[in-house]
């Protein structure tokens, strides 16, 4: 094990006890109140975010819900269309069943936004914008995008990003002794870092490639044509020049041509892809 990571683990273990509640702001107030439910949940999360252990699901979900509120704030409220929301949940659950992590309760939501994007909060809350749904033509394409986001959740990409970010910004050098006073604000930075990753900067390029590969596999296992994700990327590529960049798929995901090329190369793993479900008509009827 790397020594710096090891030190980080020790520092973080001491964190919940060493932090005075007064240095925390916003939501973290409740979390840092040692008696609160949130604090109990997250005291485990701090340890794990900073070490190589895996976080328990409840902590992961709690962080995800905090980020989901921010997602609603930044992108828009859920579209007021029960039929559409339920349909997207059916497609999402169909693929989640066959994803690399089929044992957690996922939820899928279409938010009212003209920005083309989809993103996933740790723990399984997946967002797709109404603009992106409008860009798609088939259920297999929707299944591909939802599988991609489920892949990020399953492979714990956002949380892994934060482990790295923390490491590189020097949070790892904090010791129990220096965690007093304003150093405690570093804790809140963790949530901010996650927001930055999910909503502004995007995940590491290799994580996107990994989620694409996972999406194709998951869609294929479910019985959808795994080309759906790539078709959606191609549709986005056509829109790219005239679209809003900020906070969109284009700013939070790697360049489309390289992803499309990689995905097309991966299609040879699925020789019978053309025989699998596409469902253009059902998608059109349900996504209105």
């Amino acid at each position, binding site marked *: 094990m790397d020594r710096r990571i090891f030190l980080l683990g020790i520092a973080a273990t001491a964190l919940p006890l060493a932090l005075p509640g007064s240095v925390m702001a916003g939501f973290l107030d409740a979390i840092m109140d040692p008696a609160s439910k949130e604090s109990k949940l997250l005291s485990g999360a701090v340890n794990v975010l900073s070490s190589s252990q895996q976080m328990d699901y409840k902590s992961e979900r*709690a962080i995800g819900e905090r980020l989901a509120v921010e997602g609603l704030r930044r992108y828009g409220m859920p579209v007021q269309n029960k039929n559409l929301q339920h349909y997207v949940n*059916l497609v999402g659950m169909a693929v989640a069943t066959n994803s690399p992590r089929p044992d957690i309760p996922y939820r899928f939501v279409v938010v009212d936004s003209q920005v083309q994007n989809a993103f996933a909060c740790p723990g399984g809350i997946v967002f797709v914008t109404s603009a992106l749904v409008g860009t798609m033509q088939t259920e297999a394409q929707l299944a591909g995008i939802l599988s991609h986001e489920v892949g990020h959740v399953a492979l714990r990409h956002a949380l892994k990003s934060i482990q790295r970010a923390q490491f590189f910004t020097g949070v790892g050098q904090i010791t129990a002794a220096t965690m007093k006073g304003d150093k405690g604000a570093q804790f809140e930075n963790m949530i901010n870092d996650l927001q930055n990753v999910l909503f502004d900067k995007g995940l590491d390029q290799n994580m996107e490639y990994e989620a694409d590969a996972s999406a194709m596999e998951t869609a294929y296992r479910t019985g959808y044509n795994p080309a759906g994700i790539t078709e959606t990327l191609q549709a986005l590529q056509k829109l790219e020049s005239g679209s809003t960049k900020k906070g969109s798929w284009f700013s939070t995901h790697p360049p489309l041509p390289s992803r499309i090329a990689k995905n097309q190369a991966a299609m040879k793993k699925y020789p019978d892809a053309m*025989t699998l479900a596409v469902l253009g008509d059902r998608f059109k009827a349900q996504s209105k």
Partner: protein
Amino acid sequence: MNKSAPFIAAVAGTLLLAAPALAQDKLYVASEGAKLKADKSASSNTVAELPIGTPLAVHGQEESWYKVTAGSHSGWIYRGKVAATPPEVSKKGGENLFGGAGSSTIMVSEADSARSMRGLNESEQQAAKDAGRAPRPLSEYKQALDTVLAEKVDKKELENFLKAGRIGEYAK
């Protein structure tokens, strides 16, 4: 060190994604709600419902189905339900795929709401200003999130949805 982390992640990812090889004589159930069928057809009788991680001895493959034995049961399982390695189990999952998501837990208690709302409203005010509308109170976002979490799909409904779309094992 950080060179090794992505490498390990990539290897782990590859293992998770590995498509079941035809020559494999041992596979694992890797999907929620996997059914062992009497014949290689979704409409045949269900011999058993197999939990995730169940090891399967493979006796052959025809079309999209594996002929397998799971413990004392023998039958056919759709190819999308198995993998060369069992999926990693979520630590203290507590819930399952079809479980209720409950309502949000992270939201602050009543006692803390005033202080916490101030933090959120600062950024909300900017967002509202940018969008040219009045800021929403925190309660609206919490309510929206709870509505999202309350959306539920049950197993039977999902099965009917797959059947109606002739998806996967229901293709024929």
